[in-house]
């Protein structure tokens, strides 16, 4: 079952909630806040949540978006959950490398590999 709530689309595969960004730019503060709220709600849904963020459509993001992802990561860890980031384009991945956030997040090349990586 797919739920569409711009700016993300949320689906479920087994016990993994998959969030796909629908906007190619994650820049706008209000947009980022809305995404953050959606992620927070998904994390609150269950114990030991498993969340996969698909960046396939994302061409640009800001440091505020990185902050939002860090908040989500911190929250999911508090609930003993797991977070995976997938399908990040090279230019966006470079931002993670420059900020060394590639060490903080588990980033996989594609959705399939990310989904398989949950324990």
């Amino acid at each position, binding site marked *: 079952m797919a739920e569409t709530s711009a700016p993300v689309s949320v689906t479920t595969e087994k016990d993994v909630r998959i969030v796909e960004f629908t906007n190619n730019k994650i*820049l*706008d*503060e*209000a947009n980022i806040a809305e995404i953050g709220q959606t992620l927070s709600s998904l994390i609150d849904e269950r114990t030991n949540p498993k969340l996969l963020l698909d960046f396939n459509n994302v*061409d*640009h993001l*800001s*440091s*505020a978006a*990185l*902050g*939002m992802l*860090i*908040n989500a*990561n*911190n929250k999911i860890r508090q609930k003993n959950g797991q977070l995976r980031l997938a399908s990040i384009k090279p*230019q966006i991945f470079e*931002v993670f490398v*420059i*900020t*060394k*956030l590639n*060490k*903080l997040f588990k980033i996989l090349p594609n959705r399939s590999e990310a989904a398989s990586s949950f324990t």
Partner: protein
Amino acid sequence: MQSKGPNARGGKGREKAAGAGGVVNSSGSAMGPNGLGGTSSGGGNSGGGRAARFSFIIASDFEESRTVQEQILAAVAAERFPEGDMFAIRLALEEAMINAIKHGNKLDREKTVRVEALVSPEEIEVVVHDQGSGFVKSDVPDPTLEENLEKNSGRGIMLIEAYMSSAEWTDGGRRLRMSKKREAQLAAG
């Protein structure tokens, strides 16, 4: 407070009209004492050549900022900067505007942000000047340190320095001047 990034080349440009819309003010030829360019040749090279110049004064408002950014980025795109440069400029400009509006002016709509840009085929220069209380750059923690990785803010300055050819903060941190020179290979087509 100055930093230099990779790539350093000069160039010349050609004149284009500056523009503005809505609540954004634009004065195409009226540059302040610390404005960019200053002559019609803009880029400083011999042989003439002009660049697109922009000058805006906006309220501390993200929507107005978005309008300014898109106009500047449209001029950069018109010069067919490579995709990597476009990405870098968009990111640095976004970070600079967020810093000015949110951290500098504390979202106070009574405070303004002045933005000046000079876009030539070889380089873009941008000045972003807020009316906040300023900051000391050396006081900003390194966000890449282990103990700071899980902090949800503090990466804007680092990204500006990483992605632009140069970035310099003056006037107590209220004024940022940054530039990006075109990558070695021009965009195809």
